[in-house]
C-alpha cells in the first residue's frame, strides 16, 4: 500500500538522544542502533560497531511522522508538486509515510491511473507514499469507482476529498460496497448548499469583511449524516480535516456508542482562527476555513482526548500566480509538510496546550492506525522510521527553505521553535538538516 524507491537499509547509530516513543512508552536518554535499516538495539552506550554515528545529545528521537492527507498534484499539476518534490518535502518535515489524495487531473479513479502513480513512486518517491482512490468516478458523486480492483492495485483508501459525497444514497452504497476491501473511506464533510460560495468561516469577522460565510454547520451536518450512515451500516469511516466544535462533539458521541470513526485535524486549524483572515492574505484561505476561537479550543480538546487521533497537514500546493490574487479570487489550500512539527510545537507544546508526547503520537501512530498502517515504533526488530527533533532550535519560515514546489504557507515570515534535524524512512536516511 506504500510505495517508494527501494534502496538498501542503512547502518547507523543515533547516540545520546532523548528517545521518546509514546507507544512503546520509552522516555530516556539512550542510543539506538540501526542495522541494515532495521532497529537492532536500544540501550545505553552501545558499541558503534563501525556504523555511522549521529551525535544527538540534546535532541529528541521519536517515531517518524505519518501524514494521512497530502495533495501531490500529480498527475496534472506537476508545476505545483510532483511525487519527487512532495516526498522530499515530507522527508524534511520528518515524515516516513504520506497518503496522497486522488483529486488530480485525471482523477485517480481507475487502476490505470493508480498504476502509473505507483510506478512513478517506485522510481522517485523519497518517502513511502500511499495513494487514495476516488469514491466516485471523476469525483462527480454519481457512480462508484471499481473499488475492488483499485484496492487490488494498491489504493490506500477511498476519498472524494475536495468534494463531499453529496447524495446520501451514494454514500450508503460506498459504505456497503466498500466492505469488499479493507480500506477506509475518508470523508470530506461539507453540505454544499450551506457552504455555497463561502470564502471563510461565518461569524463576526466574515460579517465585517463581507466575505461570504461558510458556516460550521455546513461541516457538522455532513459529519452527523456520515456518522449516522456509518452506524447504520456498521462500517468504519475516517473524517477529514475537522474544523468545527459541533463536528468534534458528534464524533465523540458516535464513538461512545461504538461507531468506528477516526478523525484528523490540520495544523492550521489547531493554530489559527478566523481572525487571521483580516489580513486578506490568500495564504490563510482554505477549505474548511479557519474557524472561531471556540472551535479551535474544541479541536485541541479533541486531539487531547483522542476523539481526533491524527494530525494531517492537508498539504495543498498552489502555483504562485494562482495565489497572488485578491483573497476572494484565490484557490483554497496551504502547504504544510515542512512546517507541521514546528508550527504545532510552537503553538501547542511551547504554549502548554498539549504535551510533546501527545503531539508525537498524534503525528505518527494515530494517523497510521486510522488507515490500518503499521505504526512506526522504536523497538528492536522494527524497520527504522525515525525522526530526530531539535526542540530548542528556532528557525524562520522562508520561501527558500521549501523542498515543495510551492510556497503557499500560512507561516511565511514566522519564527518557529522545533526543527526536524534528520528523518529515517523505511530504514534509509532521507533528510538531514
Amino acid at each position, binding site marked *: 500500500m506504500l510505495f517508494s524507491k527501494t534502496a538498501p537499509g542503512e547502518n547507523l547509530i543515533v547516540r545520546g538522544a532523548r528517545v521518546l516513543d509514546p507507544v512503546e512508552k520509552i522516555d530516556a536518554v539512550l542510543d539506538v542502533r540501526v542495522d541494515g535499516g532495521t532497529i537492532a538495539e536500544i540501550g545505553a552506550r552501545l558499541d558503534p560497531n563501525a556504523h555511522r554515528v549521529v551525535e544527538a545529545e540534546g535532541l529528541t528521537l521519536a517515531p517518524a511522522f505519518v501524514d494521512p492527507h497530502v495533495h501531490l498534484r500529480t498527475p496534472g499539476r506537476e508545476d505545483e508538486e510532483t511525487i519527487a518534490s512532495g516526498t522530499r518535502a515530507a522527508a524534511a518535515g520528518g515524515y516516513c509515510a504520506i497518503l496522497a489524495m486522488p483529486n488530480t487531473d485525471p482523477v485517480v479513479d481507475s487502476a490505470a491511473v493508480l498504476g502509473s502513480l505507483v510506478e512513478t513512486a517506485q522510481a522517485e518517491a523519497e518517502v513511502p507514499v500511499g495513494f487514495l482512490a476516488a469514491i466516485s468516478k471523476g469525483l462527480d458523486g454519481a457512480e462508484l469507482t471499481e473499488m475492488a480492483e483499485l484496492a487490488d492495485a494498491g489504493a490506500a483508501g477511498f476519498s472524494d476529498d475536495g468534494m463531499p459525497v453529496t447524495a446520501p444514497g451514494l454514500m450508503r452504497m460506498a459504505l456497503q460496497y466498500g466492505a469488499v476491501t479493507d480500506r477506509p473511506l475518508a470523508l470530506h464533510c461539507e453540505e454544499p448548499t450551506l457552504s455555497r460560495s463561502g470564502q471563510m468561516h*461565518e461569524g463576526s469577522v466574515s460579517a465585517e469583511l463581507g466575505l461570504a460565510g461558510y458556516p460550521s454547520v455546513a461541516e457538522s451536518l455532513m459529519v452527523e449524516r456520515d456518522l449516522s450512515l456509518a452506524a447504520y451500516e456498521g462500517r468504519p469511516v475516517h473524517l477529514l480535516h475537522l474544523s468545527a466544535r459541533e463536528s468534534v462533539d458528534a464524533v465523540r458521541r458516535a464513538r461512545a456508542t461504538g461507531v468506528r470513526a477516526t478523525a484528523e485535524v490540520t495544523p492550521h486549524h489547531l493554530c489559527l482562527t478566523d481572525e487571521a483572515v483580516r489580513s*486578506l492574505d490568500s495564504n490563510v484561505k482554505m477549505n474548511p476555513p479557519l474557524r472561531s476561537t471556540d472551535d479551535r479550543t474544541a479541536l485541541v480538546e479533541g486531539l487531547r482526548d483522542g476523539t481526533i487521533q491524527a494530525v494531517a497537514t492537508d498539504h495543498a500546493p498552489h502555483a504562485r500566480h494562482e495565489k497572488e*490574487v485578491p483573497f476572494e479570487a484565490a484557490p483554497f489550500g496551504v502547504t504544510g509538510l515542512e512546517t507541521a512539527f514546528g508550527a504545532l510545537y510552537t503553538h501547542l507544546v511551547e504554549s502548554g496546550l498539549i504535551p510533546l508526547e501527545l503531539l508525537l503520537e498524534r503525528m505518527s501512530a494515530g494517523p497510521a492506525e486510522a488507515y490500518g498502517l503499521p505504526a512506526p515504533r522504536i523497538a528492536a526488530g522494527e524497520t527504522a522510521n525515525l525522526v530526530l527533533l531539535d526542540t530548542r532550535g528556532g528557525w524562520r519560515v522562508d520561501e527558500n527553505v521549501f523542498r515543495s514546489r510551492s510556497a503557499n504557507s500560512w507561516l*511565511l515570515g514566522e519564527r518557529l521553535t522545533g526543527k526536524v534535524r534528520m528523518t529515517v524512512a523505511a530504514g534509509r536516511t532521507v533528510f538531514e538538516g
Partner: protein
Amino acid sequence: MAELRVMRDALLPPQQPPAERRHLLSVADLSKEDIERLLGTARSFARSLEREMKKLPTLRGRLVVNVFYESSTRTSSSFELAAKRLSADTMSIKASGSAVDKGESLKDTALTLGAYDPDVIVMRHPQIGAAHFVAGVTGVHVVNAGDGKHQHPTQALLDLYTLQDEFGRLEGLHVAIVGDVLHSRVARSLVQALDLVGARTTLVGPPTLLPRGVEAMGCETSTDIRAIGAADVVYVLRMQRERMLEGANYVPSLREYAERWGVTPERLRAGQKVMHPGPMNRGVEIDPRVADASDALIEGQVRAGLVTRMAVLYDLLTSGPVGVKAAQLTEVA
C-alpha cells in the same frame, strides 16, 4: 483656525510623500482623528469650490489613475473631477477594452500601471481584497473605491460629511441603515465610520440579509421596519439584484421586500432625513415620493463625494499624520 491653515497649505505643492506608503483601503484602518482631519479638509475644499476659479494648483504634476473593474457613475466621475479640481493629471482605465479582457492578471495590470509612476491608484474591483492586493504589489498610494462586498471607505466619509453638514454634529446621531446589509460594502464601511465618531447605528432588514455576527461591529439589528422610527436618519441601501445568487432565496420576491421593508412616507416621521448611496431602485427599497422629498439628502451626498475625495487625494499626497495606515500586508508567495 485649523481650517484656514489647511487652506493655505492646500495652495502649496505637497511635500515629498513619506517613505511609508499610505493607503485608504478600509475604514477599519482609520482613527477618529483621521476622520476629523479629512472632513475638515473637505470643508475647506467646499469653500474653495464656491469661488469662480474652482481649480486649485495643489496637485499639479501629480498623476491619479482610476481603475474601475466594475461599473460606476458617481464614484468614478467624482474621483476624476476631484483630481482635476486639484490640477492632477488623470487617467481612467476600465476593465472592458483593456488588457484585462485578454486575461491579464490584476498583478500585471497593477505593475503595468505602476510603471507610469502614478501617485495614486484609485481602484474599484468586484473581488474582496483587490485594493489590499494592489497596495501590496505596487509602490503607489492606493484608494479603495469599492472591493466587492467589503469596503467603500470614501462613501462612508462622504456620508459623514453629509450628516455633519445637516446636523452640525456626528456624535450621538442615530442612523438606521435599511436593506441588504449582507451584500453591502456601503453598510460595512458606514457602520465602522459611525461607530468611530460616536454615532448609533441600527441595521434593519430581512433576517436573511443581516449578516450573522454583525453586531460585533458596534451596531444593533432589527428585522422590523418600524425600528427606523427612532432614528434621526434613515439610510436606504440599494437592493442589489445583481449580487443575488440565482435561486438563493434571500427574499421570496422583490415585491414582498418592498412591501415589508420599503421606505415609504408612511413609515417616516416628519422631519426624518433620508439618505441613499445610489443608484436607487425607485419603488423597491425607496418610495419615489421619499426619494424626491425635501428631507432627502441624496443630492447633498453626491456633492459631498467630490470634496471628500479631493480631501482623500490631498491627504494621501501630503505628509500629514500617517493615519491612513497600510493594512497588514503579508507577502504572497
